[in-house]
């Protein structure tokens, strides 16, 4: 196959859009923590652009998308970008340079690692998080990406659908976040102390960048610039709109329509439409988004408020639950009329697709939880996952990075 310029332009642009989601996530998370932990929270996401961006070109891409080994993992044939050049790959995205497909995938790996950091902010030791991230990319992300998206991956072979990463990115990060929180424990003072967000406008800016970047994430996952990308684009925006609106109403029913709730809803809607974007009609985005907000809202209420699990920035409730719903919704709303490479879902008379999606949820979720638990435990007994009491009280900005977000009196 030869390179198509239109497709290539769109994939390169989409890669840049997805790249911008990581700093966007940094601000989204950063605004929600206490002032003394703002920089450290931003750093947990931004550092992934450095760390994972390197690991991906060195071995991550190869082990995810290299020659299949038993449906479990890719091979070493793309190690250090060997055999990844300006010509299209023989297997993936046949109309864009292999390098373009590779860098598009890199951005997904980066943000997936950044996503779970939201659960452990305000108390995790930075060096421990970095070490855990390397292990997690290698042992969890890389194989799961291969299972779902790799040529010969066992979930792909079974026909599990994941258009842009509902399982690979969101279930994976969301479930891992929960396992990590159970190992790490609560922040000191949670839940009795008020932990006030330091800057909600930052959260809004971050959510805006996420929404913007998500067009690259979802519509870019068409791996071409035509009709399918447009369909995914519209489904994405529609789901985000429906979810933002729904969360606004839920918070209004509780008391008042909150800004924090509305932007959270938008993100949850984007999560849920991710696996479905290129398999469902744009209008199905309304139901997928609205239901996602309801599930996530009550999930958060149950987990955090009632049970007191300190998943600090609600990564499991937003990405885990949103991703699980999105994966199942794909099995309900998918239609061959939108994407002939997809499948018909429950609404179109096919029950087996929903079962396949359920298998995808259980296997990715189960593996991510178990592997994260083991890796987290390993890091905990060696370097220790948590900062000391004083370091936590003083704040991670000072204790981990020797900086503070806002200057003092000297002008």
């Amino acid at each position, binding site marked *: 196959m030869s390179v198509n310029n239109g497709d290539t332009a769109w994939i390169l642009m989409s890669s840049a859009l997805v790249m911008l989601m990581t700093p966007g996530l940094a601000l989204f998370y950063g605004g929600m923590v206490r002032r003394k932990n703002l920089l450290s929270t931003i750093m947990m996401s931004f550092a992934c652009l450095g760390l994972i961006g390197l690991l991906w070109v060195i071995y991550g891409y190869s082990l995810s998308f290299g020659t299949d080994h038993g449906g479990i993992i890719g091979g070493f044939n793309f190690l250090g970008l060997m055999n990844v050049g300006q010509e299209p790959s023989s297997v993936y995205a046949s109309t864009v340079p292999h390098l373009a497909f590779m860098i598009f995938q890199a951005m997904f790996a980066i943000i997936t690692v950044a996503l779970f950091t939201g659960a452990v902010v305000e108390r995790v030791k930075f060096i421990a998080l970095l070490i855990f991230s390397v292990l997690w990319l290698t042992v969890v992300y890389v194989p799961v990406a291969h299972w779902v998206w790799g040529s010969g991956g066992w979930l792909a072979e079974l026909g599990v659908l994941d258009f842009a990463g509902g399982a690979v990115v969101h279930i994976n990060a969301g479930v891992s976040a929960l396992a990590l929180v159970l190992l790490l424990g609560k922040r000191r003072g949670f839940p009795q102390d*008020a932990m*006030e967000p330091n800057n909600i406008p930052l959260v809004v800016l971050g959510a805006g960048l996420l929404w913007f970047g998500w067009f690259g994430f979802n519509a870019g996952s068409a791996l071409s610039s035509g009709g399918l990308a447009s369909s995914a684009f519209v489904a994405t925006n529609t789901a985000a709109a429906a979810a933002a609106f729904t969360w606004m109403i839920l918070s209004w029913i509780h008391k008042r329509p909150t800004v924090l709730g509305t932007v*959270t809803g938008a993100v949850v809607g984007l999560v849920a439409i991710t696996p479905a974007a290129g398999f469902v009609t744009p209008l199905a985005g309304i139901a997928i988004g609205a239901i996602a907000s309801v599930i996530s*809202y009550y999930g958060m209420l149950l987990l955090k*408020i009632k049970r007191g699990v300190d998943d600090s920035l609600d990564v499991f409730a937003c990405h885990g639950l949103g991703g699980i719903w999105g994966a199942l919704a794909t099995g309900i709303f998918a239609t061959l009329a939108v994407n002939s490479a997809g499948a018909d879902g429950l609404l179109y008379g096919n029950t087996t697709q929903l079962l396949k999606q359920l298998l995808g949820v259980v296997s990715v979720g189960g593996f991510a939880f178990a592997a994260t638990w083991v890796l987290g435990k390993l890091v905990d007994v060696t370097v220790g996952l948590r900062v000391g009491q004083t370091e936590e009280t003083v704040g991670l900005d000072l204790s981990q990075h020797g900086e503070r977000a806002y200057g003092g009196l000297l002008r």
Partner: protein
Amino acid sequence: MKKIEAIIREERLKAVKEALEEKSYFGMTVSEVSGRGKQKGISLQWRVGEYRVDLLPKLKIELVVLDEDVTAAIDAIVRNARTGETGDGKIFVLPVETVVRVRTGDRNEAAI
């Protein structure tokens, strides 16, 4: 000489400032403070549910006046800062030993 420290609601600053200026008490220092009294606190909303904040933002006005002006200044503040609800604030009056104007070195009454 007395120093008047008035803790008031943020939204009453404009009225209090204008009333003091009308009585020619122009100089003041205003700072943003947090505190609590009988008002206890307020509930704010998180993504779901609520959390309680028991230190509320207020403004502190500090001004130094001659002994004979204290009653008039307090009166201007109270009249303009009061809403009748809990959380209207408090006023403290303290004796002042010395006042110095930095520009001229003037002392006490001449420096007010």
